[in-house]
């Protein structure tokens, strides 16, 4: 298409007002301009804190992963439910997400940047006023929130946006609604598999049905804990993950052989905090999830007998294994175990037991099929078949190999009558950033611009307006 021609308004309905879409998640925070197809700025929500020269310093973004500073500890401003706990830090992390890539830091005083020669008497006084400028003063801001966000947190969010960032217009949308918009549906049952949570959100006409919103903590972090449990109980020898920063060199070894690597050691006073190591271990685990872990495709559970009498587990054993090499050079081929670590998302009894895990063993009510059932029980009967025909899968952890297939089988078994149709974006980034993309679509629509909460309205009604407007 010729870039000099504008798209036809009738077919697209867009009207971009250079709005910024901010989608804060537990693991990553996504920010970008509305109307684009992917967030420009993607940073971890984790931030690092350390002391240097007696001052507390904070590291944001990808810098967290890079340097093992002495005493560096890693924190997350959100709690396990995806609700903000530490508002100061959440504000700073979010600010970093759009300041670093989108709005940029404001130009300093041109008289002080050393590029201009000024006579001393010309130093103007109004420069002081300009330094007070706030980061978002000319971009409307669309933020997302989980469906179970309490009213207090919503009010706090608009307060930050309006008062700290000075945005001219603000809107708070549910991630579920946006994910369904991203797949082009106004009514859908959104299954969002995130890092800390899995959530089921029924949506009707672009509004969530609060009584049907369900969530449970069996997200990506839970899967990581299951993988760790698996590594502890590994058969030739338990596997410990040594992150890259602790390894200075390694040599290749045969599969299953003990690693031969030279490790780095940090003296106690120079070593980073344990939370730093956990964060970096999590990166290896994420890689493991991407390369090895597979969801048993179904139609029956992994523990059940298969269609031709052979137990599914024996069937899974016949599949070729997948090799994985750890940072220290240890490598192994993973067979049926790679199915086991995610089976508990569908079958609570199949969880790999680990008494040391931070996650309690899952209850049957926390598994995805049960959540969907509970969610549908909370909405009107007439709506259920329509929702089942529009199941939208989103979230980074839903990219597990074979996940949608299994989900489809589980839903079809649970609801044999109505037509079940699972929609999942094939594109990795569309799946990971589903809710951001929906926000990008929404905030660039011409019809949406009447929905913004303007600064004037905020000043008139106070933060409570978010409850009235962002329904």
């Amino acid at each position, binding site marked *: 298409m010729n870039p*000099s021609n*504008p798209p036809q*308004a009738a077919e697209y*309905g867009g*009207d*971009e*007002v*250079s709005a910024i879409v901010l989608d804060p998640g537990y693991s990553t925070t996504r920010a970008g301009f509305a109307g684009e197809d992917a967030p420009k700025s993607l940073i971890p929500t984790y931030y690092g804190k350390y002391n240097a020269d007696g001052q507390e310093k904070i590291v944001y973004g990808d810098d967290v992963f890079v340097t093992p500073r002495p005493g560096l500890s890693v924190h997350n401003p959100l709690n396990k439910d995806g609700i903000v706990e530490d508002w100061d830090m959440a504000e700073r992390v979010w600010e970093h997400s759009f300041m670093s890539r989108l709005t940029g830091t404001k130009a300093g005083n041109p008289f002080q940047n050393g590029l201009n020669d000024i006579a001393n008497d010309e130093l103007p006084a109004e420069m002081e006023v300009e330094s007070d400028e706030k980061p978002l003063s*000319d971009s*409307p801001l669309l933020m997302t929130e989980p469906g179970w966000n309490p009213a207090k947190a919503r009010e706090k969010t608009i307060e930050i946006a309006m008062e700290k960032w000075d945005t*001219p*217009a603000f809107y708070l949308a549910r991630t579920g609604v946006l994910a369904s918009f991203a797949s082009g549906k106004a009514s859908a049952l959104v299954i969002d598999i995130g890092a800390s949570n899995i959530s089921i959100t029924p949506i*009707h*006409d672009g*509004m969530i*049905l*609060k*009584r*049907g919103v369900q969530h449970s903590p069996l997200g990506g972090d839970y899967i990581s804990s299951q993988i760790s449990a698996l590594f502890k109980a590994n058969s030739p020898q338990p596997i410990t993950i040594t992150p890259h920063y602790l390894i200075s060199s390694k040599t290749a070894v045969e599969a299953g052989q003990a690693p031969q690597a030279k490790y780095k050691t940090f003296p106690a006073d120079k070593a980073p905090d344990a939370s730093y190591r956990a964060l970096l271990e999590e990166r290896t685990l994420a890689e493991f999830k991407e390369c090895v872990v597979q969801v048993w495709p179904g139609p029956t559970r992994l523990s059940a007998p298969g269609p031709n009498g052979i137990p599914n587990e024996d069937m899974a054993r016949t599949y070729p294994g997948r090799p994985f090499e750890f940072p220290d050079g240890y490598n192994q081929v993973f067979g049926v175990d790679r199915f086991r670590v995610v089976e508990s998302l569908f079958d609570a009894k199949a969880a790999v037991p680990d008494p040391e895990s931070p996650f309690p063993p899952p209850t049957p009510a926390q598994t995805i099929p049960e959540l969907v059932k509970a969610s549908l029980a909370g*909405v*009107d*009967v*007439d*709506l*259920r*078949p329509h929702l089942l025909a529009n199941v939208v899968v989103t979230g980074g952890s839903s990219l597990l190999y074979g996940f949608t297939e299994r989900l489809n089988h589980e839903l079809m*078994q649970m*609801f*044999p*009558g*109505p037509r079940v149709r699972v929609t999942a974006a094939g594109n990795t980034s569309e799946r990971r950033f589903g809710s951001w993309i929906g926000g990008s679509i929404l905030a660039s*629509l*011409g*019809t949406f*611009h*009447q929905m*913004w909460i*303007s600064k*004037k*309205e905020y000043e008139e009604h106070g933060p409570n307006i978010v409850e009235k407007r962002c*329904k």
Partner: protein
Amino acid sequence: MASAGDVRDMLDLPAEGQPRPHKKQKVVEKRPEGITRELYALLGERAPPIAINENKYKGRPKWMNKLRVRPWSMAPFTNSARSDGLVLNHWQRKHESARPPVTAPAPDESQMDVDQPKEEEKDETPKTAEHDYAFAKYNIKPRLPRRYTDEEYERNLKNDDWSREETDYLVDLVSEYDIRWVIVADRYDFQPNLETEPDGNALVPAKQNRTMEQMKARYYYVAATMLSIEHPPSEMSEAEFELHERMLKFDPNRERDRKDLAALQINRTADEVREEAMLLEELKRITSNEQNFITERRELYSRLEVPISVGNTTMYQSSAGLSQLLQTLLQADKSKKRRSILGDGAVPSPAGQTPNATGSAGRAETPVTQAANHKKGSTASKETHQAVRTLTPAEEAKFGVTHHERVSAGVQFRSDRAQRLTQAKSNVQTQKLANALAELEIPVRLFMPTERVCKDFEKLIQSVNMLLDARKVSEKVESEIRVLEAAKFERERKAREAAGLPALPRPEVKTEADDGDTGISASHPGDPPAAPDSSAQAGHGQPDVAQETSNGGDGTHKRSASVLSATSESNKRQRR
């Protein structure tokens, strides 16, 4: 020398159907730049498969340079759908009219525009404010009835179940969510105002969970009442009246029952779903076959209504005869281009499918017959065959089960057998039988050839045959009597002649005595006075003779005999 056109003519090809294939032209590749002519010549005809010329940035075509750049600008706008006058900025193409008059068209004029957007924006701003924001027109609200006043509520809308506050809350919610009932029901969270009860001890009314049906019923009642207050039903427009009626007729209980059913429907088990799918499939099959059935049945009936040949069917009893029949029928079908008889025979007849069909073919009866044989055989085998249900005589009659002593091979129609009975050895006899049946108003081909009907028919034919035999005998006897009387008369005449008395007139019975055994129909046609006479005689003489031959046969025989005689008389008349 023949041209291409001549060849086409000879081969009957269209004159200029396809253009002649072009002669292969030598593709002279252009010499790329940067290669000398001599070097290029050395490469020969086929250039090496290496791209020698590098890709250059083409840029925009030249003609585009002549176009004027149409500038865009970041322009503020307001949205009339908003009440707060929020000003947002978007990129907008500048209006040509808003452009300042160009004094001198300079080549870099477009450049200038881009460089000086600020000045033009000032011209732009009032312009955009004038016409409405393009998307404001999508801001629509459903039309809701007017809100009630206090007085109206007191007079018309009071309800024990719904307090004024809750009604207000409901109406607010409905208008807030634009009558999206699903969402209204989802967000409905009415907190009864507890401050109205100063008494701390008073029971706090349990917060009741309103169902969507309750809300709908209440809201529709309120809306319908308000509608009728605004316009009395007599003055309503048709659409309004319809809406009013529909809202008044809303039945929450029925709606609730419907939803219960819907819930049952959605919570079916896999087996139920499978069964339903199977039944649906079956239904589809049946409905699709129904049409076939109807056409086939019609065809069968039309075939049955073909006039029956009274000819003898014995020739078709042997297998050779049957195959010959088949051949001729096939031949006939081929010429008629109709469906073959085989095809019809292969499709089960509708009567054959019903379980209690009496006219089941011999093959269908075989298992029952076998069971019956076993029953006769031994008690041991009876025990082993306990699974086979034995039927009482009443049941046998009900289900039309019959036991045959001897089952002939192949399929045969019961009606055929009945038909055969009407065929006598001689045509005359057959004709007589047919006449008798016609007299009794029994069709030659039975309408309903059930077992019992066939049996009775058989009996009837037997008695008719017997009757005919009896009559034959009686006529014989009569004619003998007549001959003898004539002889006697002759003798008396001779005796009188001998005694000298005048001769008596001679009766006309002499010839009858010759062909008397052929029966009534053979009685002298050319003699009008004699015929009624003889028939009258027959009528008089018949009862006695019948009594003689059939050993005192009952009254029906007598009656039918008289009937038969009448028939024969009419028959005679027809012949004449």
